C-alpha cells in the first residue's frame, strides 16, 4: 500500500499545529514537541512504504509521534501521561477547566487532548492509541462528564 510524499506533506501542512499541541502534553514542552513532530514526519517519509493502509495515515503518524515522544516503543501507548503544564498557551485564562483536566486520570486526559486539540475521530484515536473504539467512546464520555461536572461545581461555588 504505502503512502505518497504528497499525502504526508499535505497531512503535515494541514495538521502540524494539532500535532504539536497534543505532543506538547507528552513531550515535556512546546519546543520539544516541535522537534518530535518534525522527526515523526521525517520518519513517516522514510518509512512511508511500510504504511499498510489498514488505518488512516494520520493515525499512523500519531503512533510514530507518540513513540518518538516517549523515547521508546511501548506496547501500550495508553500509558502516556500528558503533562498539563506544557499543554496550554495561557492556562491562567481558564483555571477552572485546567484544574478539571488536571483531576482526570492520564488516559482520559490524553483522549481529551486527542479529541479536542487533535480533532481526531473515535476511530483515529483508537488507532493512534491502540485501544478499541468502544473504549475510546467510553473514556471520552466519562472524561466529558467529569469535566462538565467539575466546571459546574466550580461555577456554583463562585
Amino acid at each position, binding site marked *: 500500500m*504505502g*503512502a*505518497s*510524499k*504528497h*499525502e504526508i*506533506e*499535505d497531512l*503535515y*501542512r494541514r495538521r*502540524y*499545529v494539532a500535532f*504539536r*499541541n497534543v505532543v*506538547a502534553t507528552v513531550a515535556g514542552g*512546546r519546543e520539544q514537541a*516541535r522537534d518530535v513532530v*518534525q*522527526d515523526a*514526519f*521525517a*520518519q513517516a*517519509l*522514510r518509512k512511508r512504504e511500510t504504511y499498510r493502509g489498514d488505518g488512516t495515515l494520520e493515525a499512523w503518524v500519531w503512533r510514530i509521534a507518540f513513540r*518518538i515522544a516517549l*523515547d*521508546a*516503543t511501548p506496547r501500550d501507548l495508553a500509558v502516556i501521561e500528558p503533562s498539563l503544564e506544557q*499543554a*496550554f*498557551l*495561557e*492556562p491562567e*485564562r*481558564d483555571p477552572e*477547566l*485546567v484544574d478539571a483536566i488536571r483531576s482526570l486520570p492520564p488516559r482520559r486526559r490524553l483522549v*481529551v487532548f486527542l479529541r*479536542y*486539540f487533535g480533532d481526531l475521530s473515535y476511530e483515529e484515536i483508537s488507532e493512534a492509541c491502540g485501544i478499541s473504539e468502544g473504549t475510546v467512546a467510553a473514556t471520552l*464520555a466519562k472524561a*466529558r*462528564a467529569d*469535566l*462538565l461536572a467539575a*466546571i459546574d461545581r466550580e461555577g456554583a461555588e463562585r
Partner: protein
Amino acid sequence: MTRQGDSLLAERLSALEDPRDDSNWEDVLRRALEQPLDWRRRFRGRRALLIAAVAAALMLVVGFALAATLGGFSGWLSGKPGSPASHTEQQAFQRANARSWASFPSGTKLRRLIVTRAYGSTFQLFGFRSGDEICLRLTVNGANRGAPMSCIPRLELSDAKAPVVAALVDMPAGKVRSVLTGRRIGRRKQRVRVLSNLVSFGVTADGVSNVELRISRRNERALVENNAFLLVRPNAYSHKSVLQISTIDSAGKRIVVPFTRSDRGFDPKLMREKTRFGPTRIDRKPPRRAIAWLIIHEPRGLSLHQAGIPSRWIKGRHPVRFARVLQPDPRNHVRVVIRLAGKHNAICTLTITATRGRGFDCGWGLPDQPLGVSVRFNRSSEQSALVSGVVSDAISRIDLFLNDGERWSVPLKDNVFAVFVPRTDFPAKLAGYDSQGKVVAIEDLISL
C-alpha cells in the same frame, strides 16, 4: 452528555490552544534525508540498536545509499547553493519574470551557480527555489530573452534514484550561426541557421564532484559546482546526442543517472506500454456532472484582463462565453486558463508555464468523461513533462502513479491540475476518486 456540553468543552479548550504555526516542511525533508543517527539513539538497549542498524542497512540498499555516500539534495531542498546573483542579473530576471504570464513570486531570489566561457560566449547557470520547484536558468552572454530554463519538482529530488538529476539535455543555445547540412540544393550546398551550442544541465546532490556525459564513445566531463552541473558543446546540423549521464561515488563506483535521450524518436512499442502500478478497475461509474462554478460563471481565480493574458490566445471557432485564469497548485508557477465556448459550453484549457510557453487543449468530453488530461513538453531535451487537465465535479481527488512505484497526490483546485513529472517515470497512470474514495476514472499516460 448533551451536545451543548460537548460544544461548550470544545469552545473552552480551543481558547487554550496555541494557534502559532511554526511548521517547516523543508526541515522535515532535511531530517528525512539525514542518516537516522538520532533516530537510532532513541532506541533503548542493544536489541533496539541492532534493529536500527538493520534498518539503516536496508535503507542503504533501497536508495538512501546514495544520500549516505554522496549526500542528499539538502543543498537544494533546504539550503542556498551558489552565491547571490548580482543586482543587475537579479533585476534582469525580475523584469523577465514580471513579463511572464506564469510568473514566480516577485521576491524570488536568483543564485549564481556556474559561470563559464566557451566557444566565444559566456554561459551563466542560475538557480532558485520557489514553492515546490527547483528551477535552473541559463543565460548566454547575459541575454535573458529566451534563456533556457527548466524546473524540477521538489518531490523528484527527495525521491531521486541517483545523486544527479538532469533538467535539460542537448538544448540548443548561444549565438545563431549558419552550418552546412551536407546536402545540395541544385549546385549550392545547403545551409541552415542553428544555435551554435548544445547545453546540458541539472542539479547534483551534496558531495558530487564528477558528472560525465557520454557522447558517441567518449565521456565528456561536465563542470560541477554549487550542486549543479553544466556541459556546453558545439552544435552541428546532425549532432550526436548524449547517450549516458553518470557520476562516480566515493567508493569509485559509477552510478548511471536516469534520463530521456533527446534523440528518442517515436516508438510505437512505447505507445502500448502501461504502468503496472495504480488501480486497474473503476469502482463506480460517476454521475454525469459538469463543473458547476464554470456553468454559473462564478468568478474564480482571475479574469484574462486581470492576468494580462491576450484573449486571442483562447479564441476558437466558437465564441468564448466565459474564461478564468487559475493557479491549480500555489506551490508551482503553472497557470491554467479554462474557458467555456459555443452553445454546448465546450470546455477547453490553456496551460501556461515560464519554462515552455503555452499549450492549448480542447474537446474534453465533460460531463460524460469525468477526467480530461494532457501530457506535453515542447522540446525533446526537456526532462520533465507537464501533466495537466480538468476534472468534473464528480472527482474530488486525483493520484498519479509513476512507473517507479511512487504515488503522488496531485494538487487539484477549481477542477484543474498541473504537475511536472520526470519523463523517465512514464508510463504513468492518473486515477480520479470521488468524495467517498472510490475510483471513478483512470487514464493511462504513455511514455513520451
